[in-house]
């Protein structure tokens, strides 16, 4: 390999290491990015690349990779990860491999280092979590480890930035180093368990040699008799570094307790879902007022021609009706973030492995399913930690049934319609119930699909659950909050675009052709005239034409073309449903806030020409049921296709879930009616 720096080529540095060893934390530090780092093994599922920050003055790209335990893969996805390390299809072969090694897990993590060195990679070891090892009273002698392994070893802390400069220097030195042989020896070591055990034996002796008491000064190597004694004492005291973190051991007595564990699990899960409704209330009120104020002001300034109508009704109300739900989404992301970063999720996964395995899933499905409550897209990507193919496909299949945050605005609106407004806690309970209903139905569907698929696929099945339980830590509030805001920003950007465009399109469809209807003006107030005019205009609009085309499908559910149009627009992205409703039903423009005036017009809406109320308890409940099941998000379909590698699963999702949604809505509405509930 020639001198890379003089060739002016951009070098490639790949971060490799066991799960949860701090790769992404280091990657963020070097690239100035803010990728997701959480205290759960397997949080990174894909290679991601970035230029190393200019301030480090090194001309290189850095690649973050999914955690691997060994270069001998145990699952197809692990194989892709490992193969990409030897030669990434897009980014090529790494010039340097930086291996993160958790200092408090030395004997386990050196195993991968050994494999990498034996495969002829240029290795720099980045020793992380030195603070954790120090808490146990130890430190690693960098000099010794470096001379034993015959490669550079640097202590770093990706969280504080300590040691990053030295790591960069070491990388620079290695890039200039010409003494390496060419060529990578792909798995030059043997697969046999004999070799594996030999490798571990070697590592154990290394560990004993390099672990020294935290008090000893490793750098100047002076032999201080007192300190030397201390060192000997520690090393002879029964390998206390081989004990897990004390705090974690204590807490696990409760969390992994037979009965308390279950109790805590339920408390955490129910708090998560009910607090979404309760905590967000005041903030939602403020946003509500703000947007109705903006809409009125805009209408006053721009007049009540088509332009004023476009601005106030089309744009401001459309966007506002969705942003109102931002506080709830923020709270959901915040709580999930706190749970993730504390280290609890891995325990949650362990706790429900058994019940999930009964219906063809895996404990490792838990975290993807849980993130499905935020958004199905990252959730489907997170299924890559599931090694078993059948379990992974099944998890992907049912993820869209988790109530993602885009459904929140819809449920919130429909629940607000059903419940008396003076009892917000009732809404919380109903929401929790909807979530529960969604979960239970998805479990039922999963077990049915499992039975079904077993008969069809007849695959040989090595279902497995082995998961490292990371040490607990107090979640870093700053990290969690930054990530929450980043997620919210993405939501706003996505919602902002989709909803803005669709709102304008919908507004156009509902406003034009702007017929000037003949209305009986006599004996009516001005407000009534405007209202009449608006409803005439809508029922002659293009949207009405479209809606009437699908009305035969809506009628059996007790709904009309207006809900039909809202539902169709929700197939692009669910949250659009609310802004569509706002456009179609918000006919009056009174002083009330956005949501209340929409609720008012929903209450007074009637199925055309019949005098029958459109939104009743029965139809509104039916709508909720529809949204629980229907597969309505184009981005989810796309990611499902990508991750499963074929159209089978996404097509099944579209047809099966939407058919279930339609049928159950039909049954709900007519069932309720049969019981006299209208």
């Amino acid at each position, binding site marked *: 390999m020639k001198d890379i720096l003089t060739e002016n080529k951009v070098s490639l540095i790949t971060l490799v290491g066991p799960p949860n060893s701090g790769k992404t934390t280091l990657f963020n530090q070097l690239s100035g990015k803010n990728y997701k780092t959480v205290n759960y093994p397997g949080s990174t599922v894909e290679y991601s690349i970035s230029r190393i920050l200019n301030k480090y003055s090194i001309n290189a790209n850095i690649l973050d990779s999914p955690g691997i335990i060994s270069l001998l893969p145990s699952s197809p996805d692990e194989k892709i990860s490992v193969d990409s390390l030897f030669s990434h299809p897009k980014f090529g072969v790494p010039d340097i491999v930086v291996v993160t090694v958790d200092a408090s897990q030395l004997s386990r993590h050196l195993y991968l280092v050994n494999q990498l060195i034996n495969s002829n990679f240029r290795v720099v070891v980045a020793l992380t979590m030195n603070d954790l090892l120090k808490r146990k009273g130890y430190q690693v002698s960098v000099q010794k480890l470096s001379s034993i392994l015959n490669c550079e070893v640097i202590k770093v802390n990706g969280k504080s930035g300590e040691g990053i400069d030295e790591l960069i220097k070491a990388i620079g030195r290695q890039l200039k180093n010409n003494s390496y042989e060419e060529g990578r020896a792909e798995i030059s070591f043997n697969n046999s368990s004999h070799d*594996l055990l030999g490798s*571990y034996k070697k590592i154990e002796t290394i560990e004993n040699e390099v672990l020294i008491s935290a008090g000893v000064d490793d750098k100047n190597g002076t032999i201080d008799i007192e300190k030397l004694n201390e060192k000997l004492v520690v090393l002879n005291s029964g390998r206390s570094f*081989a004990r897990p973190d004390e705090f974690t051991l204590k807490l696990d007595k409760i969390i*992994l307790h037979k009965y308390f564990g*279950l109790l805590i699990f339920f408390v955490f899960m129910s708090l998560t879902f009910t607090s979404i409704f309760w905590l967000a209330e005041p903030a939602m009120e403020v946003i509500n007022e703000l947007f109705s104020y903006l809409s009125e002001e805009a209408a006053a300034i721009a007049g009540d021609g088509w332009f004023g109508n476009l601005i106030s009704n089309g744009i401001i109300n459309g966007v506002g009706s969705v942003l109102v739900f931002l506080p709830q989404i923020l709270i959901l992301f915040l709580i999930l973030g706190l749970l993730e970063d504390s280290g609890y999720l891995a325990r949650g996964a362990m706790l429900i492995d058994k019940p999930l395995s009964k219906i063809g899933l895996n404990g490792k499905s838990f975290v993807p399913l849980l993130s499905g409550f935020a958004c199905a897209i990252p959730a489907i990507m997170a299924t890559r930690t599931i090694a078993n193919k059948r379990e992974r496909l099944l998890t992907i299949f049912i993820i869209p049934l988790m109530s993602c945050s885009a459904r929140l605005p819809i449920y919130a609106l429909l629940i607000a319609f059903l419940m008396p407004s003076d009892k917000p806690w009732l809404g919380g309970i109903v929401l929790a119930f909807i979530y529960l209903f969604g979960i239970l139905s998805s479990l039922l569907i999963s077990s049915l699909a499992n039975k079904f698929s077993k008969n069809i696929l007849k695959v040989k099945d090595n279902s497995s659950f082995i998961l*490292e339980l990371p040490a607990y830590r107090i979640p870093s509030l700053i990290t969690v909050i930054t990530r929450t805001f980043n997620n919210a920003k993405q939501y706003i950007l996505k919602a902002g675009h989709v909803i803005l465009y669709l709102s304008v399109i919908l507004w156009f469809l509902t406003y034009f052709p702007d017929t000037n209807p003949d209305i009986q003006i006599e004996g009516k107030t001005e407000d009534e005239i405007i209202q009449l005019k608006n409803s005439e205009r809508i029922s002659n609009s293009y949207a009405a034409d479209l809606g009437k085309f699908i009305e035969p499908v809506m009628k059996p559910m007790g709904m009309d073309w207006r809900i039909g149009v809202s539902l169709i627009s929700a197939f692009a992205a669910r949250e659009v449903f609310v802004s569509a409703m706002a456009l179609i039903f918000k006919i009056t423009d009174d002083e009330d806030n956005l949501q209340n005036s929409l609720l008012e017009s929903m209450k007074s809406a009637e199925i055309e020409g019949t005098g029958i109320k459109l939104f009743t308890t029965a139809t509104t409940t039916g709508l909720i049921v529809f949204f629980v099941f229907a597969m309505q998000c184009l981005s989810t379909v796309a990611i499902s296709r990508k991750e499963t590698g074929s159209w089978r699963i996404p097509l099944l999702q579209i047809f099966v879930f939407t058919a279930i949604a339609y049928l159950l809505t039909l049954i709900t509405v007519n069932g309720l009616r049969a019981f006299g509930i209208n």
Partner: protein
Amino acid sequence: MKSAKDLKLGERAIIKDIDNDHPSSRRIMELGFTPGQEIVMLGSTVFNDPIALSVRGTIIAIRIKEAACIKI
């Protein structure tokens, strides 16, 4: 021969052997369960499966079926 799945809560043992026939056995060894290591059974769930074992300073949750190939 007894295996890790027979351990009671809080019980310690030294690993004697890893059953090579199980499909997960290599992964189990790669995670640090090797003969000579001490393991401690730290907890379980209401369903008694999986169990949490400590090995080499970390905690690993593992199904009973797979723990059965860790002979003690």
